[in-house]
């Protein structure tokens, strides 16, 4: 075995397969189970594995998005947990479900794990729903919407001279162009910075192009440990480092022009221990990509979000997992040897997870 050296853990675990639905504004014909089933089916295709090979299943989703308790329970129908399986769930983006599986796999008891995440933003008013994440005593009752909160951060960046509105538009333009080659993208196109800057503000200084689309979608990943990964994929995307950190919730106590949790997680995951060819950054807002790329320690040589990133499609609870999938794809197809995947959770980048994926040369 010649898996690359690991920064954390001792068991080499690889992202071996990835499947997702297209990100769409609304997927009305399918409920969550019907959304997930084809994705679960597809993630096994061509791997030589079946659900019987899976030793651990972990998912990410949130009740408030669906409007009912135990929403993840019905999703199990898409997976077929029979005979009974080791299975768990996080009320977070599925990237954290991937982390839980990775930790378990470090003990050598499980060598195949199925991770999935899903979310339909079309069911309710996302601004109201996400306001439910806020401190219920002092922030929640103000019902601030997620765009305005993000706008506070964007304005901070402008005030500090870290970026300009034109820079935000440049991020969006690049993302849309990259998304043209992504069959799963919801938003893509050839727009110039000038065209984008001509849009009206939604919440200053953010214009429509700087916001993520509202998306319905689901995604799944198979993790395989050790030698077995070579049976599944020719060039496994080995997770050589993975870490996550959270910041304080109180917006007023945070430095919105920085992301110390991302910097710390990146350091622990060993991002700058080598050249980063590709980075898939879970930055729902254009200005956040600039901020996060800096905190991750990425250089000019890194290709950021070749998939188009969240600006091209942002199914909640699956968006972070998709970054891992897209980063892994670049390793499988040989366009990258070292890639970074990032996921975020909470208002204005409160919590961040960073993974380093490496393929053998």
């Amino acid at each position, binding site marked *: 075995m010649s898996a690359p050296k690991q920064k954390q853990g001792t068991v080499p675990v690889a992202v071996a397969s990835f499947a997702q639905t297209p990100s769409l504004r609304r997927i009305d014909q399918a409920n969550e189970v019907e959304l997930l*089933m084809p994705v*679960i089916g597809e993630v096994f295709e061509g791997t030589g594995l079946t*659900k019987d090979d899976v030793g651990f299943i972990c998912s990410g989703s949130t009740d*408030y998005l669906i409007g009912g308790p135990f929403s993840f329970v019905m999703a199990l129908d898409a997976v077929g947990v029979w005979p009974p399986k080791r299975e768990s769930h996080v009320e977070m983006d599925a990237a954290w479900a991937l982390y839980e599986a990775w930790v378990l796999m470090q003990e050598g008891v499980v060598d195949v794990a199925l991770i999935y995440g899903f979310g339909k933003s*079309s069911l309710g008013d996302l601004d*109201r729903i996400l306001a439910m994440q806020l401190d219920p005593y002092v922030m929640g*009752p103000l019902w601030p919407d997620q765009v305005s909160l993000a706008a506070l951060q964007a304005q901070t960046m402008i005030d500090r001279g870290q970026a300009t509105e034109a820079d935000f538009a440049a991020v969006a333009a690049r993302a849309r162009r990259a998304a043209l080659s992504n069959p799963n993208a919801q938003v893509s196109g050839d727009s110039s910075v000038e065209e984008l800057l001509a849009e009206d503000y939604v919440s200053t200084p953010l214009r429509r192009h700087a916001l993520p689309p509202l998306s319905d979608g689901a995604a799944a990943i198979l993790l395989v440990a050790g030698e077995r990964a070579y049976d599944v994929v020719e060039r496994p995307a080995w997770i050589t480092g993975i870490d996550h950190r959270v910041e304080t919730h109180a917006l007023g106590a945070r430095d919105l022009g920085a992301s110390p949790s991302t910097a710390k997680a990146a350091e622990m995951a060993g991002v700058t221990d080598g050249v980063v060819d590709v980075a898939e950054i879970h930055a729902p807002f254009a200005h956040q990509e600039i901020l996060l790329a800096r905190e991750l320690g990425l250089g000019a040589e890194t290709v950021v979000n070749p998939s188009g990133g969240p600006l091209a499609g942002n199914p909640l609870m699956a968006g972070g997992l998709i970054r891992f999938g897209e980063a892994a794809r670049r390793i499988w197809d040989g366009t990258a040897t070292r890639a970074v995947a990032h996921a975020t959770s909470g208002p204005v980048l409160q919590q961040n997870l960073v993974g380093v994926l490496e393929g053998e040369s």
Partner: protein
Amino acid sequence: MTDETLAPVTMLSTPIRLEYDFTAGLAQSRNLRGYAEGKFIGQRCPVCNKVYVPSRGSCPVDAVPTDEEVVLPNTGTVTTYCVVNVPFAGQSIEIPYICAQILLDGSDIAFMGLLQEIPTDEVRMGLRVEAVWVDPEDLGPTLASVKYFRPTGEPDADYETFKEYL
């Protein structure tokens, strides 16, 4: 300022209202169209051959799509039940009411249904029941098309015939 204005806040009441559009999905839509026609529509799993009703679109054991439709009769057996006597917010049925698990003839899984036209102390496992639908002109793509289930008067089903379905 008086002492009252400096007293700590000990309670905060935040009314929350969230509206959601629910997606029935393909399988549930089949059920609802069935109700509109006064029918229970189930699906058979191509792998294990079990008939699931209401339709769910997939077999929870084999995780494969279940496309073969099976129309089920209105009659079935009460496999088990309870008598609900607890009041709660949003309750729409008058207590006490009988909440029963009903195994329609020809299906392989019981589902929850309301039992009426029988005193609560006479309900028993094995009771033979039939669905009572609303008047034909009131049928619609909704579960409310089924008013409730009531005894058929047939002799009780033998425990052996439904013990696997508990």
